[in-house]
């Protein structure tokens, strides 16, 4: 099962490597990882999407909780939640294909940014599945570069990830 774990981390050098090191040392997979400072500059928020059965997820949470730099954590997938990923796709579309590209962008509510006569960047923010879907559709174009941000998210309930719930 896929899980998204949100972590508040002390914004200190080396803190991220503790998390990454934990996952590699214990053989847990990281599907995506995003990290950035929060409105509190002493804290970073990290979002990890991973897969595993309940027991593995339980271990991942417990092992993360043991890291001294981890201030709070939450598996947001057990609650109602929002998840977003940004994707940028650079591709070639000649005049003939441009109309198709416009249709796809429209259908996905994606932005189209042109860089030259035949090269475009498609930008989309959406759930992991939606991004996958877009990439599938765009496969009929000549893709030259893809950049995905990885998933970030939060619960869409009253439960908040904050400092005191480690």
């Amino acid at each position, binding site marked *: 099962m896929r899980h998204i774990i949100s972590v508040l981390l002390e914004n200190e050098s*080396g803190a991220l490597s503790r998390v990454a*090191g934990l996952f590699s040392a214990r053989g847990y997979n990281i599907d995506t990882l995003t990290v950035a400072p929060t409105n509190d500059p002493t804290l970073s928020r990290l979002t990890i999407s991973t897969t595993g059965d309940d027991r593995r997820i339980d271990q991942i949470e417990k092992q993360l909780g043991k890291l*001294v*730099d981890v*201030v709070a954590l939450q598996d947001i997938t057990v609650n109602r939640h929002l998840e977003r990923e940004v994707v940028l796709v650079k591709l070639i579309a000649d005049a003939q294909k441009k109309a198709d590209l416009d249709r796809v962008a429209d259908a996905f509510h994606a932005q189209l940014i042109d860089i030259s006569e035949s090269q475009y960047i498609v930008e989309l923010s959406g759930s992991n599945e939606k991004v996958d879907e877009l990439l599938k559709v765009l496969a009929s174009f000549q893709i030259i570069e893809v950049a995905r941000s990885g998933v970030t998210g939060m619960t869409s309930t009253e439960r908040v990830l904050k*400092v005191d719930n480690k």
Partner: protein
Amino acid sequence: MQLTGADIVVESLKHEGVELVFGYPGGAALHIYDAFHRQDDVEHILVRHEQGATHAADGFARATGKPGVVLVTSGPGVTNAITGIATAYMDSIPMVVLSGQVMKPLIGYDAFQEIDAVGISRPCVKHNFLIQSVEEIAPTIKKAFHVASTGRPGPVLVDIPKDITAEVTTFVYPESIEMRSYPPVKSAQPSEIVAAVEAILNSSQPIVYTGGGVVLANAQEELRQFVRTLGFPCTNTLMGLGAYPHDDPLFLGMLGMHGTYEANMAMNKADLIIAIGARFDDRITGTLNGFAPDAKVLHVDIDPSVIDKNIMSDIAIVGDAKNVLTMMNQELARRAEDVNHELSRDWWAQIQDWRGLDSLWYEPSDSVIKPQFVVQKLFEATAGQAYVTSDVGQHQMYAAQFYGFSDTHRWINSGGLGTMGFGLPAAMGVKFAHRDADVACVTGEGSIQMCIQELATCKQYDLPIKVINLNNRYLGMVRQWQEFSYEKRYSHSYMDSLPDFVKLAESYGHVGMLIDKPADVEAALKEAFAMQDRLVFMDFITDQTENVYPMIEAGKSHSEMRLRPNGPKPE
């Protein structure tokens, strides 16, 4: 008070009540060494290898419960210390390691003796810090001791760039520190205790299985009361020996790969396993498929990640072993009339049957020295009161099986990492902590050579340890596995070109003894322990082909123990 960073390091150690630091100097640590020179409240012990420093600090910590302290230089000083840090980590031993680092402006430029100490130690420390400014030194050292010694203990490394140790600032040692990301240990809920005791009172085939957690929590008295109130059988892990007295009828001996028949069978057939401060590691459980098929598991541990890691629990209690046992004892007192020893009568009859097999039996000999016999005589010569350290191998298992421990903190060995080379330096740490006690290091001719240089430290600081070298001319444990699993292809397990240990000991200024006849064992031990102010290196030439039994081989379960071929057999 205005002080240099180096003086702040030493002052901070004083504030933590540190009396002893084990270390080895080098460029990046020289300001700190200079600060040591200016004072004499904190004693620095110069070892001969940084691995020795970490094991000595570790031995000190295991024998006292206080964190051991290490000081090393950057680069090779840190890398040499890693084995000892990892050893402490695997056994949850409180330790603070201070390492010199190259000057801050040089970090990242592959400077001379630069190593990313925080990076290289990260997988084997509880936490680590790279100091960024002189102001950070005191609060960081405070945090390091706090993290190392609370919760589930472990080693903490503090890496200090050299230039920072020369800078000056006002010294104030913080009274307390706050770490929002390191909350205090949760205590057990009364409802959890009630549920646990209910299960306990209903069990007819219980076993109490305890590990290093009970030792670390100093919970032996509470454990003894708990076990005796219930009249339940009790077994200890290799790390937990001493928590329950070896000669008490309720004690089944050690369990696990080389545990007794009765302890392992009782685990296998139990209806309730009461695990306290133990983590169901692979050396304890054997294969998980055949593990205790009918048992409910009540698991008590201070570290939530240990629970449901290898074995799923039915009742889990996160908390300090001493606390939880105290609460359970209170609940048992409240429910005194529900304690029914009759319930486990048949179970005990079964256990006595298993016990009757005498699975530790070995064939005595009057021509060749049996290693088990040496350990038994060591027990007698020290009235069972010695601190016993060991290295890793067969000798470690003989010591665990045959030296009966009655108290915690007495049996000191590397259980988790299994580090050869641990025994002698660990014994130094123990001896520093307990100057008047007998300290014996049970070792093998392979292991002792891994940190043999510490014999010089023992001379310099006058540490009259007794080294019990069970010399079988083999890396015995490796040889045993090769005998059992590799059709006796003894690939690189013969220890050729051994030194003359007697002369070697003498060249370090100690007493050496060679003992090669069973008849001489007892007298030699008496003589050695009578030499109270000398380190005696006792080289016992033992049976080359003796094996450790019983044994649960890889992939086997508790009920499939390999027993001594010519020994007693179950019906």
